[in-house]
């Protein structure tokens, strides 16, 4: 390994990113290959379940840790990349998505995951969220929705239910909760929308897997427990399997018998039906769980903008000389033939 300064000084003869795309590995990974450090979330925090599911996915899909990037904003949930032994960017509050987009456009050889909190994604980051759906770049965006600002100690978030007592709303929050699903489903180019809950790990995993195999921007809202600030908030849902409704479809999730034994509230939902998806998404009790919408046909921005040519020095030189020609004054004052 040479460091950059050396590289610039002495030149390099290592393969370029483009070349790397051609190297096909067949490697097996263990769970430990993706683990790093000891998560510092509170006991019982739903973020732990999400981390586990994500690590399993990486292992099962044999993602090369050095070719995988987790991008997050700021919040409890955004600590996730620190616990992955992959590359990661723990960025700025609300800005995970544009950073992930930059990475993806520059390096389509990398797998990109995004972890955001509900404040992160739906409040300060809302503009980027809307536009990320539009760009439809191939990445998996997880909204860790605990209905609260965790890291900053219990302020209302856009998804907090009305009346929730928090430190900025001591008499109860003032507004009806935003539904991230219906917003997402209203945006052009939406291509994959799902909802899961942290306490059904199997479905969480299955959904992540489906998202991974979807070619485009996969948005998953994960309803996540925050025992620290809202210890009983989701108890009713947690304890009553009737208060989730599983969405099943041959093009969506398949609910296995083990699950359907406990969660008997299962409906058929065709993920290609946008209008129906919006209706289903509008319900919040029971919580719809599964894939609400999927459309594999939406073009991916990084592909639309891709250029297959290798950016060699000669390509650039040629282009540059051509541009120079447009503006050149030759010593004799006349325009040369080739313009």
């Amino acid at each position, binding site marked *: *390994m*040479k*460091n*950059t*300064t050396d*590289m*610039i000084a002495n030149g*390099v003869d*290592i*393969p*370029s*990113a483009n070349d*790397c795309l051609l190297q096909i590995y067949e490697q097996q990974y263990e769970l430990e290959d993706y683990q790093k450090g000891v998560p510092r979330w509170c006991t019982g925090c739903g973020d732990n379940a999400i981390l586990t599911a994500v690590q399993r996915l990486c292992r099962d899909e044999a993602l090369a840790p*050095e070719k995988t*990037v*987790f*991008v997050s904003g*700021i919040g409890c949930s955004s600590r996730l*990349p*620190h616990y*992955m*032994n992959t*590359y*990661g*960017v*723990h*960025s*700025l509050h609300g*800005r995970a*998505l*544009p*950073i992930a*987009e*930059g*990475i993806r*456009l*520059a*390096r389509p*050889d*990398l797998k990109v995951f995004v972890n955001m909190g509900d404040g992160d994604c739906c409040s300060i980051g809302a*503009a980027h969220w*809307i*536009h990320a759906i539009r760009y439809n770049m191939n990445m998996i965006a997880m909204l860790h929705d605990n209905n609260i600002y965790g890291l900053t100690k219990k302020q209302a978030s856009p998804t907090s239910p009305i009346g929730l007592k928090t430190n900025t709303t001591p008499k109860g929050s003032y507004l009806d909760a935003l539904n991230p699903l219906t917003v997402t489903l209203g945006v052009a180019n939406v291509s994959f929308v799902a909802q899961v809950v942290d306490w059904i790990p199997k479905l969480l995993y299955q959904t992540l897997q489906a998202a991974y195999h979807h070619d485009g921007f996969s948005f998953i809202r994960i309803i996540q427990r925050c025992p620290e600030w809202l210890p009983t908030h989701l108890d009713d849902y947690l304890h009553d399997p009737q208060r989730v409704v599983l969405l099943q479809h041959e093009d969506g999730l398949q609910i296995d018998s083990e699950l359907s034994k406990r969660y008997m509230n299962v409906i058929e939902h065709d993920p290609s039906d946008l209008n129906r998806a919006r209706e289903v998404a509008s319900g919040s009790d029971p919580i719809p769980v599964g894939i609400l919408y999927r459309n594999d046909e939406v073009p991916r921005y990084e592909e639309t903008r891709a250029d297959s040519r290798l*950016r060699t*020095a000669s*390509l*650039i030189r040629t*282009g*540059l*000389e051509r*541009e*120079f020609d447009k*503006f*050149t*004054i*030759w*010593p004799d*004052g*006349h*325009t040369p033939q080739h313009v």
Partner: protein
Amino acid sequence: MMEMEEVVIAKTERTNGHAAAQKAHPKSKVTKLNEHIVEIISDSGEGAQKCGQSFGAIVARMGLGVWTVEIIPAEIRPPARSVAGASGNKIRIGSKRVTNGGNETDLVVAFNEQVLLGRVRSNELKPGCTILLESMWRDDRRVSQSYIEAVEQLRAAGYKVHEIPMDMECRKIVSDPRKGKNMFALGLLCALYSLDLQVAREQVVMTFGKKSARVIESNIALLEAGYAWAEENLDFKYEVPSEKTTVPQIVVNGNTALALGVLASGMEICAMYPITPATSASHYLSDAFEEVGGVVHQAEDEIAACCFAIGASYAGKCTVTITSGPGYSLKQEAIGLAVMGEIPLVVVNVQRGGPSTGQPTKTEQGDLMTTIFGSHGDAPKVVIAPGTIEDCFYSVITARKIAEMFNMVVVILSDANLANSQQPFKRPEFDEAWLAPPIDQSAVPTGAKPYDWDPKTGLARRFIPGQLGGQHTLTGLAHDENSHVAYDPEINQRAIRARSLKLATLQKTLKPPPVFGDRTGDLLIVGWGSTKGAIEEAVEEMRKEGKKVSSMHLTFLQPMAPGIKEILHGFKKVITIENNWSDSLQDEIIDETNRRYSALATLLRSRYLVDVDCFSECRGMPLKPNTVRRVALEALS
């Protein structure tokens, strides 16, 4: 706001002006000049801009020095024939290299008397200036009276007004002369300045290169008609002898030069959000960049653009984001992340008049302090400012290199003056060393740390996704050598130190700035950025008169090159001249305890403890050599 002539010329019916005669006016007397300032102004949408730019290009092709400045109307959509509505170009031509827009105008072509009055009132025309004025208004009942009065006034004030029936003459060739007049005017000017008509024709072909043959023909006919009319009807002519250059030159404005620099630096991605006066760089880039596999990404806002650029840079492709003041303010937080994460990033700020939305189309140098001190906490970044159009090109290549060598944010401070001015410079010779190195994808040796800050220089390596064993999570939180979040007081201190030392390390590689003139004397004028040409021109003139004046122009604003203190100490007085705000001691309420100094003066005073005075103005206009002269003479007295 629009350049409609292209569209409308397509409707032209007569394109048979080709045969336009080319015999010279019998009595025309030729004045030889070293330089002249020409202006062409019209209502917005009448094409004076295109005329001026073409004239500039032709002049340059003839081997003359030239600098063109855009005259941009005060309003988005000024009403026709309004005093505030002048749109056009000022073209300064000279036998030698021309480095700035110069002082007042010598000759003006005006499409109506109102836009002309606007220029007169803002003192932009030289006393006795020659005026070529469209005469059609004399016969227009609604306005003839104001036209006639204006002409009389102007003549009384000593201006040499020539009334020219442009509309009438153009009608001989096209049906709607409002859309062809600009090429007729170009013809007039070519004749007046004794330029080669064939070169002019070639330029018109280039200007309308993408249009149909009919459009091109019609425009050439108009050009020739104008040329012929001048030859036949005007009894004066100028000649500015040229010193033919032997090297090919390119003529572009500062924004195009920046964009070409992006291309030449090997960068692949430009992430931006539209904002005047920066956007034209992205426009040009959108066209040219894809030809070499580059992408211009228009993000949803400036914050996203900056973050997108950071993401791409993090992933190994150093990226540029281009903006202007308001966008730059919005990027502050994201820039801080790049500083903290030691992500190479090139930020271009094409400054405009501030604060707030300010004067979007006007020039100012108001963002230096916010560039150096913007973003909370200690966020050291490199700040460079091009002083010429040519600098605009090379500054991007340099910026990318520094950004990647030091893993730093490099900000390029251009401004509307450079952005909208054209000047020829030597056609660059492509050098592969300009390009970014390929992305390092080699495995990382075990134990290597992403931030192995060198204790002396602060420099650290950087691992790029794809490098086996280099996995780490970049964070904006305080972190240790492993990029682990760390709140340990020592680690924080160590990391901040490393990021700061990189500036000193870079500084050690810089050469002292050249002094223009002697290294000692009575007065040193210090400047930065786009004012270079005006300052040096004035200094040169004063030196010729024996004044002990020199100037120093800084390209590196942060870090500042070594040797500056010694230079400052060589002069009895030091003053900065800048296009930004400083309080004046002439104001009753201002004294040395409350005076707000201009940006560079503040920086120099602080670092070198030299009593640097300042003159500055926020008039939205490029600095004039005359202003420099006046300020310098006052300072000397």
